[in-house]
């Protein structure tokens, strides 16, 4: 399992990587997971539905991460964007 974090100016970085079945590595993954949550990040696990659609699952603790998940992606928590009076194209 890999713990990834989105980072401005960089893209994702690997925070931790290990075999969840190995107790020592699992402990390291749990510690890294907690650090990110304590820093105010959201954690998501990309998953697939039985009908083949891709989606994600937000997890609030390491116990919620599916044991077979290949990666957990951390990203900054959502905040209501600052209202702007001007319109912008894209």
């Amino acid at each position, binding site marked *: 399992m890999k713990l990834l974090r989105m980072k401005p100016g*960089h893209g994702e970085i690997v925070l931790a990587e290990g075999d969840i079945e190995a107790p020592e590595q699992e402990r390291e993954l749990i510690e890294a997971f907690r650090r990110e949550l304590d820093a105010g990040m959201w954690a998501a696990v990309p998953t697939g539905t039985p009908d083949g659609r891709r*989606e*994600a699952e937000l997890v609030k603790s390491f116990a919620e991460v599916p044991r077979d998940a290949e990666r957990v*992606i951390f990203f900054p928590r959502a905040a*209501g*964007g600052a209202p702007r009076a001007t319109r912008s194209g894209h």
Partner: protein
Amino acid sequence: MALALGTGAVILVVLFWELIRPTLKGALARGRLLWSLRRGPSAPTGYDPGRERRAEQRARALLRSCIDDYDWAMYRDLGFLRVWGALGKHERGEEATYAYLIYPHKPIVAYLPQTGALLNEYCVAFPDLSRPYGSSRLPDSDDVLAKWMALTADERRLVADANMHLPGRQVDPGRVRRDLLRLTRWERTHVGTGERLGRADTLHA
């Protein structure tokens, strides 16, 4: 005699000082410059186009690995993602009652796929307050992925966290309508390339 020798020594020292002063000043200036260069900021700050480009490439690879091929092709070709609304539950193959358009660093736009009517703008951001390179802004494709993950995982929560506005507050409605037409055309040309095409928008121009 002693006075003459003393005076001569003082004159010699002053002359010597005047001779070496410019050299010393130059050496001091060079030393200061080298010292300030060595002490320069340890973390790179400011805008670096190369770094941002590499970050965006990584973000695109991550996005591509998370969404399905059809959605990736949509984002690659059109520059935005469509996500079906899930709060009005629908079965696969049925048309969703509403959908969202996800643009990088712009509000999420909710609309009715059947008519193309725009519903709301949901202004939401994912600022990284640690500002590793002086900016809290994620690469474009990371911003899209963050919105996609938050929407598909917990749509209700994301909508609650966002600032909701009527269409046109930040995103030009004319532009969104043109994008919906582009999406309709794009889906026509991609018929058969994805299973989800059964639910293609039935937009009325």
